[in-house]
């Protein structure tokens, strides 16, 4: 029985390896038409210098919306499991980094060092995240990456401060999250009313192309991603989740 299972597994891996190999090893030269086209028109179509941003939030913004949806759904699922874990949790003590106020002084992992460093580092990380978010159209980075950095900044703040601030309150964070999701959908629909269609640039005019729409999307996605990942991380560290 054991040998049979092993045989099956070997066979599976062998077949799939053989099936994948020709695709991986094909030596066709990489196509250049799309690159050349983008090189000519990306700036005039979307206004962004960063062609990756131009694709990510311009030409293929629909994919980005789908990706945000995947994030939203998977975090919803993770959070619902997390909350239920919290309900019938037996060994609360074994979980470190607890953010419950009464546990703060006792825990060995929450040292003074972490508190001081994290609370000082938090604002700087936040600032950096905002930078990455806002300058996504001309430099590497963008809403998603900036959002993740913002989230880590928020988590640093949550680790650093003993008092609950507005920024580390999960209720406030999830409110911002849902609002920014609404804004994202609204922004993607807004083109419908300005003759440029779903996900079209609503402020497009032929004379001056500005990357306004991409900046707007970057900000919204950054808010969405930052807050939702922050909520999840704070909940994972045993913080408050009052759903």
């Amino acid at each position, binding site marked *: 029985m054991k040998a049979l299972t092993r045989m099956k597994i070997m066979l599976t891996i062998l077949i799939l390896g053989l099936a*994948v190999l020709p695709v*991986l090893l094909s030596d066709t030269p990489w*196509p250049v038409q799309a690159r050349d086209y983008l090189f000519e028109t990306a700036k005039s179509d979307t206004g962004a210098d*960063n*062609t990756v941003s131009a694709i990510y939030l311009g030409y293929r913004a629909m994919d980005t919306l789908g990706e945000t949806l995947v994030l939203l759904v998977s975090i919803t699922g*993770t959070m619902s499991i997390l909350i*239920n874990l919290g309900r019938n949790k037996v060994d609360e003590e074994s979980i470190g980094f607890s953010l419950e106020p009464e546990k703060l002084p006792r825990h060995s992992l929450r040292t003074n060092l972490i508190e001081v460093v994290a609370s000082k580092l938090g604002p700087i990380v936040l600032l950096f995240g905002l930078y990455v978010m806002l300058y996504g159209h001309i430099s590497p980075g963008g809403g998603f990456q900036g959002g993740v950095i913002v989230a880590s900044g928020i988590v640093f703040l949550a680790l650093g401060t003993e008092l609950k601030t507005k920024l580390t309150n999960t209720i406030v964070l999830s409110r911002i999250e849902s609002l920014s999701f609404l804004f994202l959908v609204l922004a993607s629909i807004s083109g419908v009313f300005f003759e440029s269609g779903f996900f079209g640039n609503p402020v497009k005019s032929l004379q001056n192309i500005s990357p306004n729409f991409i900046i707007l999307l970057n900000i919204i996605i950054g808010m969405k991603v930052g807050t939702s990942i922050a909520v999840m991380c704070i909940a994972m560290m045993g913080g408050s989740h009052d759903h």
Partner: protein
Amino acid sequence: MIIERILIFLLFIIGFAAIVAMPNIIKKIFGLNLMNAAVVLLFILEGSRIGDQAPILGDGVKHIVDPIPQALMLTAIVIGVCISALALALAVRLYKATGSLDINVITKRLESEH
């Protein structure tokens, strides 16, 4: 060139082998991550062969690499991480329900419970 592809292929295959053969469910998720990483590496590596400058337009930029695979991979990376986050949450739930990380043990215990 061929060596790079073979290395990526090996990464892909060990990831897949982990999903199929490793009994530990968390290691299966590791395998999924490795497979994803292999595909992302492949796209970026092959897409960078047609140029030698980052795809950010400006003065003096002429031969940019293909930006499309990069944009696609941004999406793929994020989707991969989201899926593995969900899978981990499910794995934790399974561990709480059965007290094991071994997929065979989990299946057996859930069956007997039914």
